[in-house]
């Protein structure tokens, strides 16, 4: 790796590790201090490495500096506390804990941090923001770009979330055995949204979006390394992410515009990720309970097969039927109706589409445009025009314009 690329790369991989371990040592109420120490460590690195060249083992160098900075901080804190609080016993402060940056403790700390950050006490979007900052080492500017909002908004959001975690006295610890299912569900939901944020974001920063997806996958992998969290749902989520990510390079063109599934170059689909998905989907099928991630992974699996067969669409339809019985979402309802048109025909799908009451969604009219095409082209056109009026992003408008053009050509 080039020297100038190394530091940003290390920042991405090591910042979150150092922060997690520090934060576990200092307690969540000192998350800011943990972040400061981690940031100062990287500042020292950028100053010294520029002058003296790279150390032999850059990551180990960072750990040593972080350890020293942590020790200094604890020493100052101990002195301060002794001066302020006379009750403090001598024994409690005479021995300073050592910062344990072993591979095991890094993983443990990150996992526990994941449970703390994904705590139901804070809002979902704050959880995602905090996860990106603390668990993935993303900069505020990058997070703002991913959410298509301002740095100011993100800063405020993170500040509020940290306050909330302090108020609630959330510990950086593995949840009690009885709490694991519920807490794990919250973690999975956040990781799922984190992945989707990268996968479906309107941000044109391609590499940032990919990083987001990869980070979500890395954190989900981490869960499989612990017996208590290596559940079928976790494996199903990795399978889902792998299948989706396999099309990552095929779904945008050079200018960052979306390429629809039907128009994608399958040569750009990543076969290794497809196989990885199949491997984890197999592991996920152990056990008796199917989560929504199982159904979504199943749907994603069928999308890795390009050839249109009745079997493919029948399976996708049934998986959407099951997904909807577990959890309703407008997107699932619309996709289910599209699958219905492929499996049972456009007439059946049109009848069902009319019952959906999703008039406010541009995607609903886009779907109607699709279903009416070839059946009633005038209705198709007017649906697409409604979709156009309701859509906001330039990318969506571009796709709708293309569809209107295709309709005119076939008339």
């Amino acid at each position, binding site marked *: 790796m080039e020297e100038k690329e190394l530091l940003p790369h290390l920042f991405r991989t090591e910042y979150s590790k150092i922060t997690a371990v520090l934060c576990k040592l200092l307690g969540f109420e000192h998350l800011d201090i943990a972040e400061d120490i981690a940031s100062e460590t990287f500042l020292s690195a950028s100053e010294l490495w520029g002058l003296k060249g790279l150390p032999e083992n850059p990551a180990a160098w960072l750990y040593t500096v972080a350890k020293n900075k942590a020790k200094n901080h604890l020493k100052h804190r101990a002195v301060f506390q002794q001066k302020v609080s006379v009750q403090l016993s001598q024994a409690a402060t005479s021995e300073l804990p050592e910062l344990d940056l072993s591979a095991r403790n890094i993983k443990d700390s990150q996992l526990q941090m994941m449970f703390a950050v994904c705590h139901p006490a804070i809002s979902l979007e704050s959880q995602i923001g905090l996860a990106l900052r603390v668990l993935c080492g993303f900069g505020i500017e990058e997070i703002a770009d991913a959410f298509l909002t301002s740095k100011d908004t993100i800063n405020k959001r993170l500040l509020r979330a940290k306050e909330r975690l302090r108020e609630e006295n959330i510990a950086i610890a593995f949840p009690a055995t009885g709490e694991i299912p519920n807490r794990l569900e919250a973690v999975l939901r956040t990781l799922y949204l984190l992945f989707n944020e990268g996968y479906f974001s309107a941000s044109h920063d391609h590499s940032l979006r990919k990083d987001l997806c990869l980070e979500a996958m890395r954190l989900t992998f981490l869960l499989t390394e612990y017996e208590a969290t290596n559940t079928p749902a976790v494996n199903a989520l990795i399978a889902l992410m792998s299948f989706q990510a396999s099309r990552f390079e095929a779904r945008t063109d050079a200018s960052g515009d979306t390429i629809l599934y039907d128009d994608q170059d399958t040569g750009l689909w990543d076969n290794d990720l497809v196989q990885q998905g199949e491997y984890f989907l197999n592991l996920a099928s152990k056990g008796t309970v199917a989560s929504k991630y199982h159904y979504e992974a199943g749907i994603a699996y069928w999308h890795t097969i390009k050839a249109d067969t009745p079997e493919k669409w*029948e399976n996708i339809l049934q998986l959407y039927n099951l997904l909807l019985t577990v959890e*309703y979402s407008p997107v699932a309802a619309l996709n289910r109706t599209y699958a219905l048109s492929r499996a049972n025909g456009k007439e059946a799908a049109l009848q069902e589409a009319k019952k959906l009451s999703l008039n406010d969604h541009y995607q609903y009219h886009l779907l109607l445009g699709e279903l009416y095409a070839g059946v009633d082209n005038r209705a198709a056109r007017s649906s697409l025009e409604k979709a156009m009026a309701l859509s906001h992003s330039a990318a969506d408008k571009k796709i709708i314009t293309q569809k209107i053009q295709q309709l005119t050509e076939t008339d």
Partner: protein
Amino acid sequence: MKNFLFLYRSDFSSAAQRSPEEMQNNTKMWMDWIGGIAAQNKLADRGNRLEQAGKVVRPNNVVTDGPFTEIKETLGGYTVIQASSLEEAAELAQGCPILAFGGNVEIREISVL
């Protein structure tokens, strides 16, 4: 929104003689129908099938096998759906696959205790 119980009744005695294809097709009809209700965000609880074996306990230690000695029609399952009125609930029950097999759907509003 109120919750309504759908009770599916039919003569299930012929169900055992169905071929695998018929059974598969039957499952698809049910899933497509339930999926359609779920896609409207009107499914509260997918419910369950009911086994045909049953007992009825009456006063004076009288226990009989099943309520269905005289009638062929039995309860085969239930679902809980959401609707704004009994009329809307009845509208949703149209298209239930059980109707195609000579069965019926009884709809009852759930009054929460």
